[in-house]
């Protein structure tokens, strides 16, 4: 059998038996989200209230990380994620204060506001790369923070921020439930909202990875000039990535404003948000759907401990994770796993030997 025919046959069988792992994962995630509150309640009873809150934080971190990663796939390392988050948070807060709309309307509109900011920012930063892009996005985020901070107090609350009413106010019904179950119901409702936003983010990420945009993003990240000559329109692809990245984190910011109960310039536009958004995918594995989620699950369990141990400097843990990840596993947890599996699988698959290395000049 010729080498030619053998490779084709291998490729053919691989295609025929390929499991759509991404879609399987999406379904598993959806099921996990659907049953998590009841499971927690069944196993932990009263303690499930705080466990549910921790689980919600994990979902929040996943959304943050995955949405950041979508933009990073085009090679743009954004330090403006806090701005998208803050734009969403302040949009819903301002709507509550100045317009009499149903509360939930603020969530999609928070996404829209983030998208508008992303399109403006994306359009002017199109030609910036690497460190320049990073610094420009960070600057834009800080300017937006300052603008929000200095809006007249009657409009945006200035330094003191704005109060945001809760989305859910379950009522205590005497005789039918215990006191703590009120808190459980509230946390459960938020958990589902976060779950839906995360599932939407994951779906968007999967759609990107399955479409030609995956190739466009990778090509632009590797070499924008070559990508252009291949017929890819880098401006369009980058703006799409910007929009997808901003919409979900904008919605997250809006939901979180309701959950926390207030928006403040320093809190809603915190650099810490940006740091979390980038450390998590780097730890989990960049440029994949799975990596940022794995990273979020891993880090959010550490996060609680850190936050309790060090109130002021809890970000130190993320610094350490970031430095160690870059030095020892630049492809993240998922990359590490893939590497191990590949090494194991390679002798069996009979991959073609590398030949002609000596031909290089």
């Amino acid at each position: 059998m010729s080498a030619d025919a053998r490779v084709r046959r291998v490729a053919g069988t691989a295609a025929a038996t390929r499991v759509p792992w991404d879609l399987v994962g999406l379904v598993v995630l959806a099921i996990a989200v659907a049953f998590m509150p009841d499971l927690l309640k069944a196993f932990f009873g009263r303690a499930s209230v705080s466990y549910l809150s921790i689980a919600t934080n994990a979902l929040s971190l996943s959304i943050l990380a995955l949405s950041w990663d979508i933009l990073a796939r085009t090679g743009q390392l954004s330090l403006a994620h806090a701005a998208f988050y803050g734009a969403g948070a302040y949009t819903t807060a301002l709507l509550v204060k100045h317009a009499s709309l149903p509360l939930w309307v603020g969530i999609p509109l928070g996404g829209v506001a983030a998208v508008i900011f992303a399109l403006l920012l994306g359009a002017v930063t199109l030609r910036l790369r690497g460190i320049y892009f990073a610094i420009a996005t960070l600057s834009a985020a800080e300017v937006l923070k300052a603008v929000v901070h200095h809006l007249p107090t009657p409009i945006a609350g200035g330094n003191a921020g704005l109060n945001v009413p809760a989305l859910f106010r379950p009522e205590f019904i005497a005789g039918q439930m215990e006191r703590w179950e009120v808190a459980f119901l509230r946390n459960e409702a938020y958990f589902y909202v976060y779950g839906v936003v995360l599932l939407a983010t994951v779906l968007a990420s999967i759609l990107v990875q399955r479409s030609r945009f995956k190739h466009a993003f990778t090509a632009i990240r590797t070499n924008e000039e070559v990508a252009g000559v291949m017929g890819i329109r880098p401006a369009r692809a980058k703006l799409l990535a910007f929009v997808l990245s901003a919409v979900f984190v904008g919605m997250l910011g809006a939901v979180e404003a309701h959950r926390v109960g207030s928006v403040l310039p320093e809190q809603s536009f915190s650099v810490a948000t940006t740091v979390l958004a980038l450390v998590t995918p780097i730890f989990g594995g960049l440029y994949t759907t799975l990596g940022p989620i794995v990273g979020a699950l891993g880090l959010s369990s550490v996060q609680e401990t850190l936050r309790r141990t060090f109130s002021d400097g809890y970000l130190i843990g993320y610094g350490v994770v970031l430095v160690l990840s870059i030095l020892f596993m630049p492809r993240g947890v998922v990359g590490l796993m893939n590497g191990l599996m590949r090494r194991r699988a390679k002798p069996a698959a009979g991959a073609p030997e590398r030949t002609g290395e000596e031909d290089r000049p």
Partner: protein
Amino acid sequence: MDTTLLVQALVSGVLAAGLYALVSVGLALAIGVIGIVNFAHGEFFMVGAFLAYQLFVTFGIDPVWSLFIVAPALFALGGVIYTSTIRFVLKAPELNQMLLTFGIGIILQNLALLIWGGDPRTIAGISYRGIGYQIGGVSIGLVPLASFVISLVLVLGLYWMLSSTPLGRAMRAVAQNRTGAALVGLEVNRVYLVAFALSALLAGIGGVMIAVIQSPTPVVGFAFTLKAFAIVVVAGLGNVRGILFAALFVAVAESLVATMVPNGDTLRNAVFFAIIFAVLIRRSWRTV
């Protein structure tokens, strides 16, 4: 518009420019020689400031003398960080280099927050802190003036070192051509190490001065990373000469906004960010 106020703002801006130039020149050194954009640069500045503070509180050492302790300490810190981390990513993608230094910055800043907390720290009770001169209604503090002079001397000293000493020539050779420099027998890695440590040292000295001029908190470092970056960008990457002028421009702009705009003091940082943003965007849209 009050002329005296305007002149006062200009003078304060010019005096601040010296310190800005000192910190920026260190960042430019790391970028120019090693090719690493160091996101942790301002943290060296912060460490310098808090070392000076601690030396004063614990041993009562005057900041003027702690300059001679902080400088070698920061040189050593820079050397240790280069040897333990930076040198492993010299050939890694730019993204990884950036994230690594970002991570180092996060660690240093939060370590400081753990040790000193988030409140501003003042070196209180030094006699020369309050001394100032009045010239036609414009006041010039002794400490800002001295920091301006010291900074200027150090920046000019660095220029001299780069242009006239064997070490400086080695640095410039390495900056221009890594492999070429290796071929003529320079130990590239050692030159990098010295350049990085020197850059930390310069930032650390700046930190000692800020500890006397202001009452810094541990987050002052990140702000100075960005200020230094703004200045380096305005000057043009790799253009060490332009830094003095860029520092002057940025510091005066900042001082004018703080003085002239109502509530301007809190807008200071926003001015920096607006300048960086505008300069970066403008540069990028010049036709290829």
